């Protein structure tokens, strides 16, 4: 009797015994046995009665039948009738008293509650980004053009390119040299003493320096362990005899001094902790760095908390290194620059406002631009007004003009919403870099920037001119202003129009650079009175006809 074993049946039948009754189970299928096979001497039907009694001859037949069962209620122990409510209740109560039951339910309850809370917190399967297309990844967000001495200038997107001066070289579209840092560059500076050397701060906190005569790879890179821990947002060369010193600042709160001949460790460090304890935890993240060659031991750091810290490098103790702080911005300070003529006065730009300050006093000038984004403003090299035929000016006008000439706001909100920065050139041509990675050199229109200029451009903005809150200036400064106004010549086109760049201090006729005139309508009434007479200047031809649109949402205050 070998057959029959293959059939799945829940009932076994012994050879000589009767098949067992199938147990009443809550299984879905009830089976009965039945099968033919085995050694049939007389026929295949177990019901047929032949001469031999079935137990002796035939194998037991197992009949199998498949049936579905509608599981209405099951699992109850035998003695309980599911229909009777009392019995079921009693059974349930009994189960609930079981200690094991209690423990298990508590455990599972916690588990379940966790998941329910998860569900309530957020619907993780929601279609979040269905409507948006994938934005293209533009390279590094900020591209920072820097001008070097001479003609070349470079801008750094994630890699680095160099462009030669478009007015001097033949092919402005092709970079002359591509520098390849190991990590994207955030800032870049030419060495003022050696125009072939640049130092750049990397996104990973290292500092690298290049020699353009030696090719595109950095000559040396600072070691990671001693470098910054955050992107290096500011790297500035120092005036030193060797011309090899620079310092860098980053949002990790440190300012490090380096000698580029030995970038394996910084020569000096400073932690920007304004409580003067030198604790790294309290340190503010530095975003901009300012250093004026005329004051070699002092420098200023603009932080991302909106505070400007003035520091003295040569202080005896680290706690005295930080001399003073100036707060007032609500957001990171995007740009910081001193007035080259009045080093005590500096300008900070951040979070839609711009402050001009004395190092001892607070805000001389506060300009509020509500939705403008100021990226950088440069200071003009030339200041003052043009030589005028009219000798007499009211002090107020002189003041205004001089003050206006002290700074410019470079706004770069090009029509294509390209964010740009311009940098005041030590050389001649300022440049603007855009977020798209393009960079535009600007050529300045010939013209002087007298105050009337502001109104001459049709509908131009005098954006930075919210001169509502002005503190009176020093007598002395006023005198200076007057004097300089009469003596110096103006060199640059009107400010806060977008993309105006400072002049190179040459006579207007030879000035090169650009002013991008804002063609857009002015929403800010120019607050300053136009000095009449004599202050006529030509608006020279603008090399680039790009119009920068002023993107504001609200009217700028006058």
């Amino acid at each position, binding site marked *: 009797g070998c057959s029959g074993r293959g059939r799945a049946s829940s009932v076994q039948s012994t050879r000589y015994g009767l098949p067992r009754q199938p147990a009443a189970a809550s299984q879905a299928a009830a089976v009965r046995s039945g099968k033919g096979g085995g050694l049939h001497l007389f026929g295949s039907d177990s019901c047929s009665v032949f001469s031999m009694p079935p137990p002796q001859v035939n194998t037991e037949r197992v009949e199998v039948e498949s049936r579905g069962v509608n599981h209405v209620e099951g699992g109850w122990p035998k003695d309980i009738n599911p229909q009777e409510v009392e019995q079921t209740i009693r059974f349930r109560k009994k*189960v609930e008293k079981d200690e*094991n039951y209690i423990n*298990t339910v*508590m455990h599972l309850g916690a588990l*379940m509650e966790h*998941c329910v809370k998860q569900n*309530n917190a957020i619907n993780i399967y929601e279609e979040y980004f269905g409507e948006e297309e994938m934005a293209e990844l533009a390279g590094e967000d900020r591209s920072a053009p820097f001008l070097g001495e001479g003609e070349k200038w470079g801008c750094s997107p994630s890699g680095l390119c160099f462009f030669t001066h478009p007015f001097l070289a033949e092919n402005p579209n092709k970079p002359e040299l591509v520098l390849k840092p190991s990590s994207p560059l955030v800032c870049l500076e030419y060495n003022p003493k050696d125009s072939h050397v640049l130092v750049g701060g990397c996104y990973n906190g290292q500092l690298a320096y290049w020699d353009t005569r030696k090719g595109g790879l950095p000559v040396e890179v600072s070691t990671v362990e001693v470098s910054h821990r955050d992107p290096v947002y500011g790297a500035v060369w120092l005036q030193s005899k060797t011309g090899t010193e620079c310092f860098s600042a980053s949002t990790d709160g440190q300012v490090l001094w380096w000698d580029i001949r030995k970038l394996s460790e910084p020569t000096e460090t400073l932690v920007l902790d304004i409580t003067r304890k030198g604790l790294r935890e309290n340190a503010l993240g530095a975003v901009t760095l300012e250093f004026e060659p005329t004051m070699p031991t002092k420098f200023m750091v603009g932080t991302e908390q909106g505070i400007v810290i003035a520091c003295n490098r040569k202080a005896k103790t680290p706690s005295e290194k930080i001399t003073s702080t100036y707060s007032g911005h609500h957001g990171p300070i995007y740009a910081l620059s001193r007035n080259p003529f009045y080093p005590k006065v500096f300008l900070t730009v951040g979070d839609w406002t711009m402050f001009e300050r004395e190092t001892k006093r607070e805000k001389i000038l506060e300009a509020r631009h509500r939705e403008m984004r100021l990226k950088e403003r440069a200071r003009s090299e030339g200041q003052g007004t043009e030589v005028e035929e009219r000798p007499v000016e009211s002090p107020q006008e002189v003041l205004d003009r001089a003050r206006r000439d002290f700074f410019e706001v470079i706004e770069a909100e090009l029509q294509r919403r390209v964010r740009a920065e311009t940098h005041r050139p030590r050389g001649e041509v300022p440049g603007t870099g855009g977020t798209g990675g393009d960079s535009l050199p600007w050529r300045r229109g010939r013209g002087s920037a007298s105050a009337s200029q502001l109104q001459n451009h049709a509908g131009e903005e005098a954006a930075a001119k919210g001169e509502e809150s002005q503190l009176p200036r020093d007598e002395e400064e006023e005198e200076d202003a007057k004097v300089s106004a009469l003596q110096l010549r103006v060199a640059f086109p009107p400010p806060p129009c977008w993309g105006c760049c400072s002049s190179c201090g040459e006579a207007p006729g030879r000035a090169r650079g650009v002013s991008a005139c804002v063609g857009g309508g002015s929403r800010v009434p120019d607050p300053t009175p136009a000095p009449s007479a004599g202050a006529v200047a030509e608006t020279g031809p603008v090399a680039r006809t790009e119009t920068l649109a002023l993107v504001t949402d609200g009217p700028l205050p006058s």
Partner: protein
Amino acid sequence: MSPVEETLKRIQAHKGVIGTVVINAEGIPIRTTLDNSTSVQYAGLLHQLTMKARSTVRDIDPQNDLTFLRIRSKKHEIMVAPVYENITIYSPCKQMC
């Protein structure tokens, strides 16, 4: 109130929870906030699915075990916390959006 009741009440009180059923190994709903026929239906269906899921997990890695099972459908989500000795808690719960 017994801690069991408190726990179950707490779960039931959460936003979006439609019902809670505690089921023992034999498939009997011990405590439920739904009606009897629904509870019994859930008991029968979910038990098999949970067993299957558990055996899947353990087949792939014998050291592993199923801790929780979520079945998300268009209208609801059923969350099953299984315990392999005696009890499971099934909690049909509305999907949050």
